[in-house]
């Protein structure tokens, strides 16, 4: 087990700069997510850490070792692919034992560790099967067992759960987290599923067009996004136009948008859909932001309902429990309100 440090890493493909000046620390034993939309080069970053690609600048360290010149074969990493990449010509046990045989650990040691790894993923009884005889979830577990059986220093996962259906995915998330805790391996995974990233990880890094936009614990990043992109990408956010655009924030702003104490300048203001309440009358409490708006849409989705309201030159998305939203005909005036602390102040450049 070891910490991983990515320091000012740059990677180019011809004229195209895939990664520019990316830095992130991955402390020992943690669970980390690299999150970004498609084209953010998050997989490129993972493949660079893995050693399939070499950096054009900057340094990657695994433990105390600088690995910039070490190819993937020698980096002692475990890797899991989106499509599992199990060897179709080998049994489950041979798949798991592949890395051990390469390392020539000896037949009895090999058998023992294959058994251990398969037991860890609860597939001890399926060692003789071929991959095509397994379900998607089972293949996933085999791929995980294969990645950790050599006791790598770091486990890298490339969109590991995106091929599974939703309920299985949630089960596998829990399972993945349990196994990661049990063996305490530093784990870095790439995903475009923000919920997965927020649930699983101790720290997330948001990538966009090959730049690390923000990294930190999920709560920090969610509550204090550094820019409009992060606010909108991670969770949902209503960006409030025309407010705080490079101005000094006044507080309290009567009848307008209130910001939390301590916020001086902002490039934009935002509010999460779940922070907003809808009422038919004007709320009179102190310390809340309020907007008079017209209800344009209401969608019932079981646990949560979504409303769209337009007011003050902005379109607001509101998410709440259905019974908390008053019965109002579409096109009627409503009041949107939220507490000052719920206004996200996106810092100025």
């Amino acid at each position, binding site marked *: 087990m070891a910490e991983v440090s990515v320091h000012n890493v740059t990677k180019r493909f011809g004229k195209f700069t895939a990664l520019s000046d990316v830095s992130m620390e991955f402390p020992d034993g943690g669970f980390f997510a690299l999150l970004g939309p498609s084209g953010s080069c998050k997989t490129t970053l993972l493949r660079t850490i893995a050693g399939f690609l070499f950096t054009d600048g900057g340094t990657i360290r695994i433990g105390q070792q600088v690995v910039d010149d070490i190819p993937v074969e020698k980096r002692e990493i475990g890797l899991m692919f989106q499509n599992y990449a199990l*060897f179709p010509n080998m049994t489950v046990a041979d798949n798991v034992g592949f890395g051990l045989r*390469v390392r020539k650990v000896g037949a009895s040691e090999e058998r023992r560790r294959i058994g251990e790894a398969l037991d860890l993923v609860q597939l001890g009884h399926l060692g003789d099967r*071929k991959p095509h005889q397994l379900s998607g979830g089972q293949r996933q577990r085999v791929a995980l067992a294969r990645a950790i059986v050599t006791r790598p220093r770091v486990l890298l996962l490339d969109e590991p759960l995106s091929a599974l259906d939703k309920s299985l995915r949630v089960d596998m998330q829990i399972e993945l987290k349990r196994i990661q805790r049990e063996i305490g391996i530093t784990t870095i995974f790439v995903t475009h599923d923000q919920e997965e990233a927020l649930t699983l990880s101790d720290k997330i890094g948001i990538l966009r067009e090959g730049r690390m936009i923000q990294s930190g614990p999920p709560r920090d990043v969610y509550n204090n996004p550094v820019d409009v992109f992060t606010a909108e990408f991670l969770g949902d956010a209503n960006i409030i136009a025309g407010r705080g655009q490079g101005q000094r924030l006044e507080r309290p702003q009567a009848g307008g948008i209130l910001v939390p104490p301590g916020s001086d300048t902002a490039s934009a203001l935002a509010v999460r859909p779940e922070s907003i309440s809808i009422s038919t009358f004007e709320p009179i409490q102190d310390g809340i932001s309020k907007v008079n708006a017209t209800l344009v849409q209401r969608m019932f989705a079981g646990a949560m309902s979504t409303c769209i309201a337009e007011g003050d030159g902005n379109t607001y998305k509101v998410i709440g429990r259905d019974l908390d939203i008053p019965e109002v005909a579409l096109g009627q005036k409503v009041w949107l309100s939220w507490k000052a602390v719920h206004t996200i102040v996106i810092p100025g450049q």
Partner: protein
Amino acid sequence: MSTTLANQQRSKIISLLSPAYLWLTVAIFLPLSAMLYFSFLSDVPFGQTEWHLTTENYQAFFQTTTYAKLLWKSIKLGLIVTGFAVLVGFPCAYVLAKVIQGRAREALFLLVILPFWSNSLVRIFSWAIVLRGNGVLEIGLNAILPFEVDVNLMFSTPAIVIGLVHSYLPYVILTSYLALQAIDDNLIDAARSMGAGKHTILWRIILPLSLPGLLAGAVLIFVPVVGSFMEPRILGGRVGTYFGTVIEDQFVAVFNWPLGAALSFILLAVVLVILALSSPILRRAQT
């Protein structure tokens, strides 16, 4: 209603299949049946000759060791040519499938297919010009090398092998290429991440997974090479007597069609037996 649908389906299937099978019946099955019939005759049933049914032609194969020796020589030639074609073709298919991308791949592929598009006689005589004494190869080598070399491969076994490998190389390249391209690149990456070097990946991942294609190509080469006569005759000259050339002689020179037909069917039977014996290996490679 479902029966009309089924009928429509059936007529569609028949209309799609029948041209091919009709063609095969007329072009292969009927002549082959005629040949089988000939092989049991005492003489060609044309003109004024007397003929009767007999198994003499088949007995002739076993009466001397000449035919068996020639057959064995042909099988050895088949194995050697197949071996060289695999050795040369598989690496080429690997590079085409896994290393080169885009337009360069198309261009290189065209070069691989080129032998198919040239007339086989032209191809063989071109080789004759290259391989003969004072031929293109000798002149070329002497132009580059500082010392004189004497290259006269014409009318030798190497000349036959060179010509046959050239003719049949595309088969092994094409079938291997298809099998190699179907291998997910992630499998190779996964093996690398587990510490496997190039040799381990080749022997434990790439070869096992592409073996069906490789063997299909080998079979496609082996079968026609065992019966080949043109390359042995033109490039081999005096040493170019093989089972295939003997069969050809029966038809065009000696005019003993029944014996030629019988020898052809013996060859067919031996090749089928070889394929049947190796089929367990082929089948295991496919799972």
